[in-house]
């Protein structure tokens, strides 16, 4: 199975990655070979096999509902390129 360059650009856009033409060529090739491998795996009969959601044969551990973290806003905001009035600032988004 192969994918075309438009698919590659779409996947890149969804992941917010900028690809050059040369990149796109290369990814078209490598993603297609991954998909070929998947295609090959699909020939295995999996009737009656539950889909695996995690390879670790363990179950989720739970946390007590208690507040364990204190306010560290100043430290967090110090990492941000821009902050004001306790808020992270980002380029304007209008949706």
């Amino acid at each position, binding site marked *: 199975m192969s994918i075309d360059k438009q698919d590659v650009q779409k996947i890149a856009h969804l992941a917010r990655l900028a690809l050059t033409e040369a990149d796109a060529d290369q990814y078209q090739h490598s993603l297609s070979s991954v998909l070929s491998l998947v295609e090959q795996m699909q020939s295995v009969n999996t009737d009656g096999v539950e889909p695996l959601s*995690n390879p670790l044969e363990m179950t989720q551990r739970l946390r007590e509902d208690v507040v364990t973290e204190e306010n560290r806003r100043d430290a*967090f905001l110090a990492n941000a390129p821009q902050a004001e009035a306790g808020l992270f600032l980002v380029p*304007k988004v209008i949706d």
Partner: protein
Amino acid sequence: MNWEVVIGLEIHTQLSTKSKLFSGAAVGFGAEPNTQTTLVDLGMPGALPVFNKEALRMAVMFGHAINAEIGMTSVFARKNYFYPDLPKGYQTSQMDHPIVGKGYLDVVLDDGTTSRIGITRAHLEEDAGKSLHEDFQGMTGIDLNRSSTPLLEIVSEPDIRSAKEAVAYVKMIHSIVTYLGICDGNMAEGSMRCDINLSLRPKGQKEYGTRTEIKNVNSFRFIEKAIYTEIERQADILEDGGRIIQETRLYDPEKNETRSMRSKEDANDYRYFPCPDLLPVVLTQEYVDDIKTSLPELPSQKAARFQSEYALSEYDASVLSSSRAMAEFFENANDVVKDAKLTTNWVMGELSKLLNQEQLDIENSPVNAQAFGELLVRIKDDTINGKTAKDVFQAMWNGEGSADEIIEAKGLKQVTDTGAIEAMIQTILDANAAQVEQYRAADDDKQKKMIGFFVGQVMKASQGKANPGLVNPILARMLKG
């Protein structure tokens, strides 16, 4: 054309846990921006989520309340999209294996009919942060306090056929989650938000029409109005031979219209996949059963009990059980009065009237259940009559004291002294000799109508304090002459 409306609702309820779904940060409305965040909520690389036990328990409680299958193994999935209020780049949610599976609710409408609304699923997910678009010189401010707040998203089947039915369903969900104590139900603060999926089809047609989704409607009234406007908009388009575009819309309460949200290309390509940071959540039957047996009494069960225990009508029982606070007020007051009929009439009458007038919830009633009950006891033991009691209640409402204090201070105690009443009646009969003569000449039917005049005169003379239960027989006897 005769259109049938088809509605499905997605209700996001914020679970009232102390800490977040996947971190130990505090949950709360109105804190200073970004003071309730952790590395997990900020989506810092390497920070790992740990699932909150209490959120799980609350979700299972809800599942039992809607007669649903509980997901014995549920799986968290990543819903991928980019938006600055979601720094991780994905929302942790559930897709193929939600915690609550198929269930249903029987919704009682105003006209007394019941309709069964199917619930497809309810799944746990985290909320996103908030974007503030004002005042930052062309920048957007991000507050991540709400990020990772636990939500239970309740998805209905497209079983709803009118705005009224939709509102009744949402009210019932609201009442269940507040009864269970798993959500504070505060819609103004966003603790419960509703997405409305709506389409029209010609009556009798089987296939659904193209639907639109109205996002984030946050009051019962707006849900009703948004549905009416969207039905009208779609019907206009269809009747002009146009086509409905499947899209997300916003309801604007000020203009009472829905309008298209600018939706990005590929906006719905969420590429869900199981979250590798969280393992499957596996429940034991014992855990699920224990939650079921410890479930508090639900609104419909309470309504049934009110009917059998207090002999209330179906309507009265459903009104009194509609909110947990109302039901508790009724039962606490009635513990004092021990007369369910009297208590019901007063809770649904005078109390509700004053609460409505001042737009107060029963939790904030200036007269509490105990004081309210003490007032009704004074009606029951004939200290005051119903009419005087209304004045006393108003005075209690205004903070003038307890029922007994007000009755004492204003001298409102009923006159129950037979001799005093007889004397009062005699004075009135003497002053109205002509009417007495007419009365004596009249037949039984006419007399029944005419006696009202004399009762009125007596009550007036006694300033409302004469006990009507005594006045009536004495008056009838004395009029006979």
